């Protein structure tokens, strides 16, 4: 058995809570808070997925009457688009990988007993929860939810009379986003302080697992980006409710002047996308970290080029703030500015390619174990490449002018930002479930889930590229009657059927998740024979993570197949390994 070294404890200030409320509701324990984030994201993803299903149904059967909603009007369709995007981006892709897994595993992986500020951590979750409730409430107020898209472009989003849903529903939408920003900032504060100040003895920055690096850099991105979104939201609320003109130019609605003048819709776009593009990396970086981890574990090889991976994460984070203008090529910006944004955008391809090659290098000649977490990790790499490859097309202003506002764009970002991140979440779920719940998930169901999701995702989003190239515009609720698009209707039908099947496949995951919590096979403490610190502690981990002790770290996070070692992995807290001569 392994021999692990533990130092004097840097342990908990708060005792393990006893009552249900303190233990499971208003908990200070980062693990419980991680689970709360995870299940919030799970609830949100089903809401978001349901909305997307309604969109897909309406696109091919535009006259169909749907249960609960009745006839879907064009504005209702835009509401579905808006709320689907908002819920998925904020409450799923931002919440699960960072708030969920990051909260649960960052302290354990660096050998800390908890987050640096547990009360703040609890507040960050409940703030996020409140934001979700406010967002959902927008469906149930007079006029319904807003229709201005998840990007909230002004002046549509800035005028209460701009359309149904742009009244109280839009106010709730903005307030929800603002509350979410505050929650995310509290979370980021905790992640950064914990990473910098609470690492166990021997856990140098360059011994941190790539997951921790990804959560750390993601937190920095959030810290810099959410403040800007918050400021934009405040200005938007003022335009809507106090009569200011930050974003609203001189406009008329139904022939009547609105009373605003001189504002700039482009100012909103700049502020929004200064947040919006880093948000893409906030969604994808944790998935990159988690999949890097898994590829090494299940290839039984050290990650290929650990330092390069770290620098690539940093480079992606840095460059992520330099490229927001590529979302605005159509806004009439100077060609020179567009050129600069284009170059910077393509430059991001370099660290992304480094990561991809290193993932492939890790897989090469590995003794690969095709367990379900590994399947999803490989699926992530596949989706990242497939979605990423269309990035350089859209990064070029000339091509973007053609492809902008067509289905090519949703195809691109769904693959790389949406589903790739979700594959990361699935991979992490299958990987860490034994540690979180003490039981294994059912492997057969996991494999069925993988193949449904993997094939289904490609079936949905690859054809969308062709729709876009053929000129089918996005955001329109009814295109079946448009002559030049008639030939594309069968493809749209195919996508909708694929969406049905893929979503049905997710039921397998949910059944597996809840069934395995209670009936799954008991898990050992280290079922994957992995090296990082979470696998040195009990399953599930005790309240203070290491049972009153703190691990001392001697080794890197990816010591697999070490020559001369008694087994094919050396844990981080094992005695220091001698370099092979």
């Amino acid at each position, binding site marked *: *058995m392994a021999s692990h070294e533990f130092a004097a*404890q840097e342990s908990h200030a708060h005792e393990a809570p006893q009552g249900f409320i303190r233990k499971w509701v208003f908990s200070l324990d980062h693990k419980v808070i991680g689970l709360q984030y995870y299940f919030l994201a799970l609830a949100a993803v089903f809401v978001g997925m349901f909305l997307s299903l309604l969109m897909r149904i309406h696109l091919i059967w535009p006259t169909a009457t749907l249960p609960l909603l009745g006839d879907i009007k064009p504005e209702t369709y835009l509401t579905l688009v808006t709320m689907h995007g908002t819920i998925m981006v904020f409450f799923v892709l931002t919440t699960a990988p960072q708030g969920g897994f990051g909260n649960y595993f960052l302290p354990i992986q660096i050998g800390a007993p908890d987050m640096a500020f547990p009360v703040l951590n609890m507040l960050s979750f409940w703030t996020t929860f409140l934001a979700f409730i406010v967002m959902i409430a927008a469906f149930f107020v007079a006029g319904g939810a807003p229709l201005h898209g998840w990007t909230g472009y002004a002046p549509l989003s800035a005028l209460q009379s701009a359309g149904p849903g742009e009244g109280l529903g839009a106010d709730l939408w903005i307030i929800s986003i603002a509350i979410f920003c505050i929650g995310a900032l509290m979370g980021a504060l905790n992640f950064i302080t914990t990473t910098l100040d609470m690492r166990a003895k021997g856990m140098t920055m360059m011994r941190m697992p790539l997951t921790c690096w990804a959560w750390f850099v993601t937190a920095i991105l959030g810290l810099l980006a959410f403040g800007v979104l918050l400021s934009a939201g405040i200005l938007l609320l003022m335009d809507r409710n106090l009569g200011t003109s930050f974003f609203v130019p001189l406009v008329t609605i139904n022939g009547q002047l609105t009373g605003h003048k001189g504002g700039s819709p482009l100012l909103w776009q700049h502020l929004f996308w200064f947040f919006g593009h880093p948000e893409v990396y906030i969604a994808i970086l944790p998935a990159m970290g988690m999949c890097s981890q898994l590829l090494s574990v299940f290839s039984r090889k050290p990650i290929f080029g650990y330092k390069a991976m770290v620098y690539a994460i940093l480079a992606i984070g840095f460059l992520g703030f330099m490229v927001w203008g590529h979302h605005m090529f159509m806004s009439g910006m100077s060609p020179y500015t567009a050129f600069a944004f284009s170059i910077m955008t393509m430059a991001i391809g370099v660290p992304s390619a480094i990561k991809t090659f290193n993932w492939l290098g890790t897989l090469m000649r590995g003794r690969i174990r095709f367990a379900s977490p590994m399947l999803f990790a490989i699926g992530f790499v596949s989706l990242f490449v497939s979605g990423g490859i269309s990035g350089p097309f859209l990064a070029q202003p000339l091509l973007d002018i053609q492809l902008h506002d067509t289905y090519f764009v949703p195809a691109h970002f769904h693959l790389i930002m949406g589903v790739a991140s979700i594959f990361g979440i699935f991979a992490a779920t299958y990987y860490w479930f034994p540690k979180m719940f003490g039981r294994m998930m059912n492997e057969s169901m996991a494999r069925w889930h993988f193949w449904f999701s993997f094939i289904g995702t490609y079936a949905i989003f690859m054809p969308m590229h062709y729709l876009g190239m053929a000129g089918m515009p996005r955001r329109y609720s009814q295109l079946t009657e448009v002559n030049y698009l008639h030939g594309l209707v069968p493809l749209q039908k195919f996508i909708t059927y694929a969406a049905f099947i893929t979503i049905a496949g997710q039921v397998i995951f949910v059944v597996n998740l809840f069934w395995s919590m209670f009936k799954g096979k008991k898990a050992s403490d280290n079922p994957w024979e992995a090296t990082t610190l979470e696998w040195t502690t009990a399953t599930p981990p005790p309240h203070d993570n290491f049972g009153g002790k703190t691990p001392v770290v001697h080794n890197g996070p990816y010591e697999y197949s070490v020559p001369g070692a008694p087994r094919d992995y050396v844990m981080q807290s094992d005695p220091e390994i001698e370099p092979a001569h």
Partner: protein
Amino acid sequence: MASFSTTATVDDPRILLGDDGIAPPIRGDGGDDGSGPGLPDYATRLRRARLGLLVALTPVLMLFVSFSSAYIVRQGLPTIDPRTNQLVRDWIPVTLPRLLLINTGVLILSSLFMEMARRQIKGQVTLASETSVPGVSAGDQTRIPWLSMTLVLGLVFLFGQWTAWRQLAANGFYVATTPSSSFVYLLTGTHAIHLMGGVLALFIAGIASLLGHSVATRSIVVDVTAWYWHFMAGLWIYILCLLEFAS
């Protein structure tokens, strides 16, 4: 290569209390709950709290950077006059009330008082460790209530800002009158809300004193509040310069 002297080795990856591990000393984390049975040492807590504050100030900075960029962009934008169909500028510079200068002086003075309060309580922490030695006395000390004075000046500043707003309104400049007045209210209002956070922290420090919390805990609250307060003072001077000179 263990660095701590109290190390223990276990043979099983399963880590449980009471095996062959060393019983831990009473220490802990918990940078924000302050009163648990086991806290890390003072230096660790102070370092962590300061780091947390530094990180927390980043989004505040980004918020104002964002407002500033909006301020500069909006200033240069023309609009169409619907009566003449000509491009005109709707940016009417606001004459700032002179009261804001007095408020600035009050805030700077409060920042000085806050610094005195920080140094005072830091001295108390040092003394507390020395007076714990038998036979060593701190002697008579005259304590000036710097913290309370800071709190009073903070409230005076906020009241002064409110009065300045009323003066602006009396001169016909409301939130939506002109984009420049929108920004005056926005920037001063957002700053005031943040300063209220500092006032709240001062209240908490005072309550901690009344509740008999250790001087170390109070010292940490006062220390981070002091740095926050200085930041707010610096931020206010920046805002004033932006409104006065970049208009």
